[in-house]
């Protein structure tokens, strides 16, 4: 239905709130990209079939609601299924488990023990009691597990569009900006610029039109928070943008989203058309004078387009090259008109601030970083997934309390934050409270929220080389320090990892890194040296070992080790010899085997298949 007055929307929202009938059950199947890759759609289909069969048999399935929701966050244990009310949490669910879940849990309220989450302390039944969830504060991400991203009614039922109603009914643009300023919200895309101040500058800038833009070009490898918000709760971002447009005086908005996120694009597209039909977008929103609409623009797969000025060039259909920011894009941005750009997570915070007020919002967080932050906790960590914590939570709380620590009994070595522009922090920094300023002071940065955990088998020189290699490919090439400087940094690092390091390389890296930082045009170049500088700061000895001793202590840099077989441990099972693609392993059955270093290509398959730990790495 199309709402033509704020009051109508509010009345409808009251009607759809808690739409589950008394005694009803909701089956929430996580349909985020992570769970889909683990087979969630097959699980969903099995539920559809099972419920259809129930209906056919006349069982009381009318009260069972099946929902494909967005990402719940606990990707490690996907596919995830939660039965509400009661939040009975099932993990690693396969289509073959569905019949039992329906028969026992849905119909009788019994628990299927084999599907429960288990850790050292035994099985856990309820979602909120699982350590991964228990230690989180899910202000922005919490509705994901409850709503279908394809239903505006679901969003309305959870209090959605109430902030917009409040704004249109009782606030002036000036009041909205003042509230956002008072909340101290800082941009979640990485820069941490105060959002309210940005909005004010845009509103005050002269121009015949203004734009609001949502940056969903989430390019940092290992970061997928924004995708999961867009996939799971697109209306929340849309609501934030409508409010932002009202505040700055914009009539048109854009969402610039990675084309590599097809599900996010699809769900956003559906949400936009639903919002239009409901009178929440378009001319005279909810019967007021505020008119605004949003277009989607799919990115072309260039990392630099996450930079605001490059993104705006790309929106114009041009090559995404950044420009200097002596004039900010809030004054002259998209089509040289005032343009206010915020990232997905920033927009998703807006409804919360308007609904609950800046006073409430600022109770969470640290002195200069308020609210919560979403992180994607990935890499060598037990519980891979999306995590939302108050600003100021420590790295230790995130990685160990929520993330469950390091798998396979290995030792923690470093955590990388901030994407390719960020840095690696060592174990001595685990008690660092995570906020914008603390991370920067430690030589890393907040970035958009990727948090990649590394264990003792990760080589920090290799990690620096990896990030610089990424940036060589993604530098747009416009300015020389970035184009040439990053290339040279990468060459030096590559040589070090190949055993060709020379005395003085560390000093050369430092000098070059500082030049690139000081003289590059945009943030990509200015921050490109961070992975080098932070690993040099905290892991200098590892560099020295590579250069002087030609050794890689982590056993990653392949020029610096070779595979060998420990004759004591080898049982002569022949497994490695049979799987070696090069025929480099020889030996008689039941006798210790040998590896021919000349034939070995160091693919590591022999080590992967050995069940006795007999294949080892030794210095080359």
């Amino acid at each position: 239905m199309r709402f033509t007055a704020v009051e109508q929307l509010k009345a409808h929202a009251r009607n759809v709130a808690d739409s589950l009938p008394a005694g009803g059950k909701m089956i929430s199947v996580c349909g985020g990209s992570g769970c889909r890759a683990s087979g969630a759609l097959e699980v969903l289909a099995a539920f559809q079939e099972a419920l259809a069969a129930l209906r056919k048999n006349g069982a009381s399935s009318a009260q069972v609601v099946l929902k494909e929701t967005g990402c719940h966050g606990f990707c490690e244990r996907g596919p995830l299924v939660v039965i509400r009310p009661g939040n009975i949490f099932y993990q690693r669910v396969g289509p073959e488990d569905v019949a039992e879940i329906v028969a026992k849990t849905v119909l009788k309220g019994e628990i299927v023990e084999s599907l429960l989450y288990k850790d050292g302390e035994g099985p856990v039944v309820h979602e909120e009691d699982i350590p991964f969830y228990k230690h989180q504060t899910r202000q922005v991400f919490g509705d994901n597990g409850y709503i279908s991203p394809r239903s505006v009614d679901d969003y309305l039922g959870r209090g959605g569009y109430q902030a917009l109603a409040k704004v249109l009914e009782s606030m002036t643009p000036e009041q909205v900006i003042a509230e956002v300023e008072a909340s101290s919200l800082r941009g979640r895309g990485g820069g941490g610029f105060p959002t309210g101040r940005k909005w004010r500058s845009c509103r005050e800038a002269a121009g015949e039109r203004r734009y609001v833009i949502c940056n969903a070009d989430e390019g940092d490898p290992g970061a997928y928070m924004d995708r999961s918000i867009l996939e799971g709760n697109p209306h929340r971002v849309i609501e934030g943008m409508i409010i932002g447009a009202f505040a700055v005086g914009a009539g048109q908005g854009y969402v610039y989203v990675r084309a590599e996120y097809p599900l996010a694009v699809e769900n956003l597209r559906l949400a936009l058309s639903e919002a239009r039909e409901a009178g929440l977008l378009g001319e005279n929103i909810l019967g007021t004078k505020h008119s605004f609409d949003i277009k989607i623009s799919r990115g072309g797969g260039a990392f630099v387009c996450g930079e605001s000025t490059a993104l705006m060039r790309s929106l114009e259909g041009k090559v995404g090259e950044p420009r200097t920011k002596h004039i900010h894009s809030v004054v002259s941005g998209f089509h040289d008109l005032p343009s206010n750009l915020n990232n997905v997570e920033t927009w998703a915070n807006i409804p919360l601030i308007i609904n609950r007020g800046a006073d409430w919002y600022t109770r969470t967080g640290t002195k200069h970083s308020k609210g919560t932050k979403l992180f994607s906790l990935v890499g060598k960590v037990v519980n891979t997934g999306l995590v939302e914590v108050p600003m100021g939570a420590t790295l230790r709380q995130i990685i160990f309390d929520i993330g469950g620590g390091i798998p396979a009994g290995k030792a923690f070595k470093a955590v990388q934050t901030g994407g390719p522009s960020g840095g690696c922090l060592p174990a001595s920094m685990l008690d660092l409270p995570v906020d914008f300023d603390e991370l920067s002071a430690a030589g890393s940065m907040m970035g958009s929220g990727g948090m990649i955990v590394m264990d003792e088998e990760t080589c920090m020189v290799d990690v620096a080389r990896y990030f610089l290699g990424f940036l060589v490919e993604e530098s747009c090439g416009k300015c020389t320090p970035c184009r040439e400087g990053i290339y040279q940094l990468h060459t030096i690092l590559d040589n070090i990892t190949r055993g060709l390091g020379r005395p003085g390389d560390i000093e050369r890296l430092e000098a070059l890194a500082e030049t690139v930082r000081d003289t590059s045009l945009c943030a990509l170049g200015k921050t490109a040296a961070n992975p080098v500088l932070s690993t040099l700061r905290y892991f200098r000895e590892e560099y020295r070992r590579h250069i002087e001793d030609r050794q890689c202590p982590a056993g990653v840099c392949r020029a610096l080790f070779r595979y060998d077989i420990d004759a004591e441990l080898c049982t002569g099972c022949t497994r490695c010899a049979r799987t070696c693609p090069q025929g480099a392993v020889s030996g008689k059955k039941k006798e210790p085997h040998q590896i021919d270093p000349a034939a070995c290509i160091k693919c590591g398959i022999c080590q992967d298949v050995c069940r006795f730990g007999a294949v080892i790495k030794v210095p080359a």
Partner: protein
Amino acid sequence: MKTALDEILCAYEASPESLIAVFQDVQERFRYLSEQHIREVAARLEVPLPQAYAVATFYNAFSLRPKGKYIIKICLGTACHVRGAPRILEEAERLLGISRGETTPDGKFSLETVNCLGACALGPIMVVGEKSHGHVTPLTVQDILKETEKS
């Protein structure tokens, strides 16, 4: 008669702003941007040809040569990297006899790398066509390729 290109162009406003979106659809449909495509799209959207060419070569999404029937994407995101993705890439390169960014001479496989698929819990990840394979090891690369050839 409407050509395939006409159909694509119809869906968008005839303005330079639509260039990237039109190229994306052309790439998806034809698996590359031919010289003819670039010239025609530029003319229809009134974009100077050099600018259209610059866009076609700037973005990773576009290829000036046809891609293979099966596109293999190996995730080299940070999480996959620390879990051994470079070994997966090398094994795929060895088995297919091509380097990343190339297509096999028979036009069957294109080998690509991506910077993050956002399914880090499953890393290292290899995607063939639409199907994701998680926790890939060098040993399983061969099985995945064989399975694809059969299908």
